[in-house]
């Protein structure tokens, strides 16, 4: 057979070593040396949540961090799959497939530059790993972290204690800036302009950010969410309309993404137009 080197593995014995929880949100820490070694910011895992056939499919979950054999995921209970996942306890072993997908681009020219990382709700998940790597690359990341209420920004202190500048917003004003995270970004843009903007979060947030970035001529990359069948390009179920190299078509979020350059993303409203 071929001698190609592949960058994804099935770890059937990823040991869950720590569970941190705040409301609907969970931070899981696994020992999974091989996936941890291969993982890059913006990539994801397909996590098996049951040992039987119900629910049938794995769940796509962002990699929150990968460091020294340790692999972390941050997720919100949003349905039956994530609910079952949330019931796992330290000491349990899980079946993880990953790392998957095309992550964020950390470019050499980011060194010495200001970079905005904008996360809405559970969309914060991949941004810690990203900000950490941006720091290592000599860039200055600023994290914008928005949620509906104070309960929806549980990673705030975690990010701050890691030494990352973190600006928080809540829709109800219960914590940080009162309003949408996109308004907080606009407010901050009046004072300083980043060389690049990364984002992950609800569709409406990212669409608004895309407008802002285009207005202010800020390049960026956004991580998209999609319902996935396999996570490694076999089912073609997770596609999203993407404008690339002069043509618009359905590309697989799991392989070509989940991270796309913002100017390539076709937003839902435009789809029928």
């Amino acid at each position, binding site marked *: 057979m071929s001698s190609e080197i592949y960058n994804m593995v099935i770890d059937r014995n990823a040991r869950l070593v720590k569970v941190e929880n705040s409301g609907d949100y969970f931070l899981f820490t696994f020992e999974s040396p091989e996936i941890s070694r291969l993982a890059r910011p913006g990539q994801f895992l397909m996590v098996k949540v049951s040992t039987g056939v119900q629910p*049938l499919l794995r769940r796509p979950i962002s990699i929150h961090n990968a460091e020294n054999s340790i692999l972390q995921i941050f997720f919100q209970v949003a349905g039956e799959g994530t609910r079952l996942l949330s019931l796992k306890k330290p000491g349990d072993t899980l079946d993880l497939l990953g790392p998957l997908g095309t992550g964020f681009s950390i470019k050499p020219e980011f060194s010495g530059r200001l970079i905005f990382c904008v996360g809405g709700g559970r969309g914060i998940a991949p941004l810690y790993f990203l900000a950490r790597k941006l720091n290592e690359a000599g860039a200055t990341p600023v994290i914008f972290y928005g949620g509906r209420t104070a309960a929806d920004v549980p990673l705030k202190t975690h990010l701050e204690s890691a030494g990352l500048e973190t600006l928080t917003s809540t829709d109800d004003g219960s914590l940080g800036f009162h309003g949408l995270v996109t308004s907080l970004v606009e407010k901050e843009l009046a004072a300083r302009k980043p060389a690049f903007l990364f984002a992950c979060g609800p569709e409406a947030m990212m669409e608004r950010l895309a407008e802002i970035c285009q207005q202010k001529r800020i390049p960026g990359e956004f991580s998209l969410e999609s319902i*996935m069948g396999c996570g490694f390009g*076999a089912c073609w*179920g997770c596609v*999203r309309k993407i404008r690339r190299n002069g043509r618009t078509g359905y590309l697989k979020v799991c392989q070509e993404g989940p991270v796309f350059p913002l100017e390539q993303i076709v937003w839902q409203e435009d789809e029928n137009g």
Partner: protein
Amino acid sequence: MVDLSVDLGFLKLKNPVLAASGTFGYGLEFKPFYNLELLGGFVVKGLYFNPREGNKPPRLVETPSGLINSIGLQGIGVEAFCREILPQLADLDTAVIANVCGEDEDEYARVAEYLSRHNGLAALELNISCPNVREGGRCPAQNPEATYRTVKKVKQVTSIPVITKLSPNVTDITSVARAAEEAGSQAISLINTILALAVDPETRRPKLGNVMGGLSGPAIKPVALRMVFQVSRAVKVPVIGMGGITSATDVVEFMITGAAAVQVGTANFVDPDACLRIIQGLEDWARSHGVERISELTGSLKI
């Protein structure tokens, strides 16, 4: 030593497990996970003559022990397949089977004829049964006459053996199976997905962009077994059974019921190495049950 090989007459397989079309990409997607030569074979994603855009998302919805898809056969088209993919598959020591699609009978023949000019294919599987490409899930496999005409047309342009893949969305599947056999199909594979629908009660909208889709996964296994039972008694050509197989014992059940070989589909999404585990499990099962040749299971159902 268990003999896992099966002989379909026109094709010898090293074991009865094939990966099913639409769940195995073009094969290459699974190379990171195991040696494809361990498979009985695999059926690549459906090929039309031209590239296809596929259906509007969302394309997937999970249901109890199942999955409804409406991919709509997005794909690269037969020319790109023969140019870019087939050369990477042709030398594999396993049965590589192309899945042939068409908007009409002529297109099936054009795709089959184009494929026939290339080396490396063990068989063509005619996908006359995809529920996702026409309004209301219509397809040639819903009608014995259309099935006969389509198979006949393809047989006239190719010398590669033909397998016809049937739809469960019919009143009498045996009449369609017989039509395919009469037209010269050397095997019958079944079942394709079951036409299905899922609704979001909050928005009152269908959960799939294309409204209806095809149900697969363990949820459809009993329906698939029933149809394998009926078809294997209605035709003389070998039957390749599929529908919800996730384990070696599922394979055993399909073979006992009448299948000469099987295809594993949706399970490939959940466990990229599902086929491999099933093949290993099949050998263990045969050994522990004193079965020396796996092919002796076929049609051994006691009624």
